[in-house]
């Protein structure tokens, strides 16, 4: 059994949560003052996920970079891998908002898409 301290991000209260984890499963959450804290801790301790945003360098046009995001959340431990993928990818202009810039980034099954049109 392990215990993990974390700050709830549900609202400005920022409750200090304590999650009890047994065999990879959260068995109890304390310190929360509402339901959001409980569900946040259960997710965050077992399978934390993040949306990654950034830019990708461009060729073949005027814009030096285009802004991108992961179309959905990726596992938190993959954040640096995804960032590295963004930092080494190249987008050929023109790019339209929503275009897939990197498919299935780092084997997450999530695409990286442009958030802005660039030419």
């Amino acid at each position: 059994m392990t215990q993990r301290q974390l700050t709830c991000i549900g609202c400005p209260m920022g409750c200090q949560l304590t999650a009890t984890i047994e065999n990879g499963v959260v068995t109890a959450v304390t310190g929360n003052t509402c339901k959001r804290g409980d569900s946040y801790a259960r997710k965050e301790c077992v399978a934390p996920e993040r949306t990654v945003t950034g830019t990708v360098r461009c060729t073949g046009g005027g814009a030096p970079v285009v802004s991108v995001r992961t179309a959905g959340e990726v596992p938190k431990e993959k954040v640096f891998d995804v960032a590295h993928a963004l930092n080494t990818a190249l987008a050929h202009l023109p790019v339209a908002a929503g275009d897939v810039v990197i498919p299935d980034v780092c084997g997450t099954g999530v695409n990286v898409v442009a958030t802005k049109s660039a030419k």
Partner: protein
Amino acid sequence: MIYDAIVIGGGAVGCAAARELSRYDLRIALCEKGEDVCVGTSKANSAIVHAGFDAVPGTKKARFNVAGSRMMESLSRELDFPYRRNGAMVLCFDEKDLPHLEELLDRGQQNGVEGLRIVRGEELHQLEPALSPAAAAALYAPTSAIVCPFGMTIALAENAAQNGVEFFMDSPVSEIRRRDGLYELTAGDKVLQTRTVVNAAGVYSDVLHNMVCESKLSIMPRSGEYCLLDKKDGHLVERTVFQLPGKFGKGVLVTPTVHGNLLIGPTAVDREDKDATNTTADGLAYAIRMAGLSVPNLPMRDTITSFCGLRAHLEGESDDFIIGESADGFFDAVGIESPGLSSAPAIGLHLAQCIAQKLDATEKLTFIATRRDIPHLRELPFEDRQALVRDNPAYGSIICRCEQISEGEIVDAIHRLPGARSLDGVKRRVRAGMGRCQGGFCSPKVMEILSRELGIPQTELTKSGGSSKLLVGYTKEVQA
């Protein structure tokens, strides 16, 4: 190739000397340690053209101050730089100090300063309603003025360049040798030979002097810290407001600037280090406290920047300017602290005349006495501005929102001679980045223009030359 004169130092005095020398049929160069002119003492001071009541009668400070002050207005018209005769007050807060004011008045009259008088009580507060009620009387000097020190120095430099003076930037003079009746200077990566030298090296003028002369001098840099307030506060006082001077200088002043900001400062603290232009918490607090004695409730939350300048204060028995030929063909302008800016035109003129006489030089018929500044679009009447924009649409594209500076003005600043090569170079010439956001919005755009016009990548651009690079590279290629 042998120069007739090499000026060391591109501050107000050096540029004034170069400009006055360029009247003559001489081969002239100016060596500047920094990447641009006006980057030392000349860029960070009170920007006052002192009337000349403060200096002890008979000193060079008194003589050159009064002469410089008299030259300044016509010079500002000839060379098109901002100057305004706004007058000055020296306050005293206690009737007991009146004799000190009278002493100043007497000194000023001996120095030949016109229009001096003592104002008291109601008249004083009518003239300057924002003054502290504690202000009892003041010496009023109507001939005191304010000037843009960048505008003035750059105007002198540009006019000198127009008249054939060569400018070598990034060229610190590290060695001066006497050889075959000439001076041989190591200046950066160059070796230059010249018949005469003007030493206008500011806080380093002692080092240069000591390379050549038997008698040794020592400059102790004396720091002055300032706060600059937003233009909305520039009307708080009309005149430059001093307090009775003390041992370390003219005390803390409150003054409008020619551009309409409010300036307070300076402190006066000796520093060992000739490049220690850092502000300090104590210094700024002192300046604010002292300024508050003259003008209470200063809106310090409108501060847009603070800065520190170093005065070239001469150590020893006399702290008067040293101006003249200290060794054969080696002309000094050493210890040029306040009133140095005011004196600069007169010092430049004097040194140029000395050198011309020594070299038996003749005046050029081709000398161009006037220089036009880059147009200040913001100050032009609507129709004139409209016409300029029609001719050159770059004048219609605003880059610096706070000061309303157009792309055209910035491009002009880069292509002048000597032109801007850095963010600060642009700022000093056309005030882009000088406003209330301090370059927050316009820096990236000015960098883009500098890169385009100079043909160098943005990653090589600097804030103010040397290693002051603005960027470390492109994204995606950086590892901490």
